[in-house]
């Protein structure tokens, strides 16, 4: 069977062959299968050594001290641990948290939960570019603000927030600063030795490591304390109990080490391919790029083909695996909340497609995608009553729709 071209690297990535090969050494009787917490024998020591090496690899990519890395099951858990951990530990200092409307659900739903527990959360609106206006952020700070959580790179539109400036403001006001870096690490440089960030979430599977694996950076200087969310054997200095998954950890370490070695060259190649894809659509009518095109991670292109519904376009280009902000891809019938927060109209949000390019994307993949998308957009526009109306010069926002 001919499999579709993969252009959904922001959803997940395949495990790099080099990573998978290394992981396989930590599972079987012949390998280092031990429990890193077994301090009394060879098997435990071998596992501990592997975990330590991986911790250094992860820390090294982001300019952190290995002792600042806490293993988790993924960025969702890291986000939960960071936000609930700070809120629960420092709640006597204040009960106010600041975040953005365009954050990942792992942040938003965690904040909603804290609201139910008596915290107050401010959800900031982005600019239409998707970026955060630093003055809007400053204005939201209160006496009782204890934490700000702003993602580094947005998962849908790929825009890069200025975490240096946001962090500087946080330091000035003695607010803890958490950054979800699941979509940025290994793609753009991060130096936690100089960045004013207290907590940062990472995921392995977004950069060719295994799923079910992540980490949380917890700063030592200044010292940040967390209330554990997972209790048990006191692993990870008491912040996250549970036997360490050596093979997963080794996989994450190797993926991060490869990213450190190859990121610069790979980023350039991926950006060229992304720009080629964008160029291929540039002369089409009624095409809108969602999110700032300059402050954006190399592999992401989120684009709306107006008057064509996103899911039907995905179905038409089923030879290419992409995502859409269309409601029809979810059961909720609500289009992407990220695009809505940018002030995009419903129909533009419904018409959005996210292409994300990665390590194994080729020029041919991009060219095939351009050809297919152009052909199918034209076909679907011929089928679209909205396209007819647009061509007749009718302003769709003035039409009385019979909503259902």
């Amino acid at each position, binding site marked *: 069977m001919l499999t579709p071209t993969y252009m959904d690297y922001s959803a997940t990535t395949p495990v790099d062959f080099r990573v998978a090969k290394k992981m396989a050494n930590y599972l079987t009787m012949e390998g280092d299968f031990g429990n890193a917490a077994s301090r009394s024998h060879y098997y435990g020591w071998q596992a501990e050594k592997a975990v330590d090496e991986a911790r250094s690899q992860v820390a090294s990519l982001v300019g952190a001290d290995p002792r600042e890395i806490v293993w988790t099951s993924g960025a969702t858990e890291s986000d939960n641990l960071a936000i609930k951990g700070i809120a629960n530990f420092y709640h006597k200092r204040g009960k106010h948290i600041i975040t953005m409307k365009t954050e990942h659900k792992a942040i938003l739903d965690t904040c909603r939960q804290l609201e139910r527990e008596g915290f107050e959360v401010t959800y900031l609106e982005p600019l239409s570019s998707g970026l955060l206006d630093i003055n809007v952020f400053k204005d939201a700070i209160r006496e009782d603000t204890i934490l700000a959580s702003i993602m580094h790179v947005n998962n849908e539109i790929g825009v890069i927030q200025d975490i240096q400036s946001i962090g500087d403001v946080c330091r000035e006001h003695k607010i803890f600063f958490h950054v979800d870096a699941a979509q940025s690490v290994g793609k753009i440089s991060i130096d936690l030795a100089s960045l004013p960030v207290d907590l940062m979430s990472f995921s392995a599977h977004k950069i060719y490591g295994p799923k079910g694996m992540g980490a949380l950076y917890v700063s030592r200087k200044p010292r940040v304390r967390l209330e554990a969310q997972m209790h048990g054997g006191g692993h990870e200095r008491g912040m996250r109990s549970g036997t360490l998954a050596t093979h997963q950890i080794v996989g994450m370490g190797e993926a991060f080490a490869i990213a450190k070695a190859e990121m610069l060259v790979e980023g350039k190649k991926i950006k060229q391919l992304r720009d080629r894809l964008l160029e291929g659509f540039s002369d089409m009518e009624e095409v809108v790029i969602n999110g700032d095109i300059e402050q954006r991670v190399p592999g992401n292109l989120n684009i709306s083909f107006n008057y064509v519904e996103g899911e*039907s376009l995905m179905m038409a280009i089923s030879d290419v695996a992409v995502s859409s902000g269309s409601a029809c891809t979810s059961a909720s019938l609500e289009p992407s909340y990220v695009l809505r927060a940018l002030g995009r109209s419903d129909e533009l949000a419904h018409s959005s497609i996210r292409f994300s390019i990665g390590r194994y994307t080729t020029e041919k993949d991009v060219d095939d995608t351009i050809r297919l998308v152009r052909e199918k957009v034209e076909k679907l526009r011929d089928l679209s009553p909205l396209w007819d109306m647009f061509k007749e010069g009718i302003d769709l926002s003035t039409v009385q729709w019979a909503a259902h």
Partner: protein
Amino acid sequence: MAYGKKVLDHYENPRNVGVLDKDAKNVGTGMVGAPACGDVMRLQIQVNDKGVIEDAKFKTYGCGSAIASSSLLTEWVKGKTVDEASEIKNTEIVEELELPPVKIHCSVLAEDAIKAAINDLKSKAG
């Protein structure tokens, strides 16, 4: 989500795509849905002097199931009288296209569209 064979067939080879003269006395036009909800259907029927639907056309903005529902409906109504067409139920569309629960609203929209087209036709007849 994987699509059913019949949905794919109608989606890839939609029947009766097009436009009829909406000002003609024997043409009824129904436009239902809203861009905000992600589907808009325009369904048109043309009747002869015996009240039989001799042509039907549609255009749909929406997901594959919405396109397939309207395409199927245009096939079904041709040759039927207006009264017969008004009795088509969305559940018949669901059954024929094997639509999953999350796509049932597409079939509801198609039923609304044919009803709206018939109403338009009747209002023209005065």
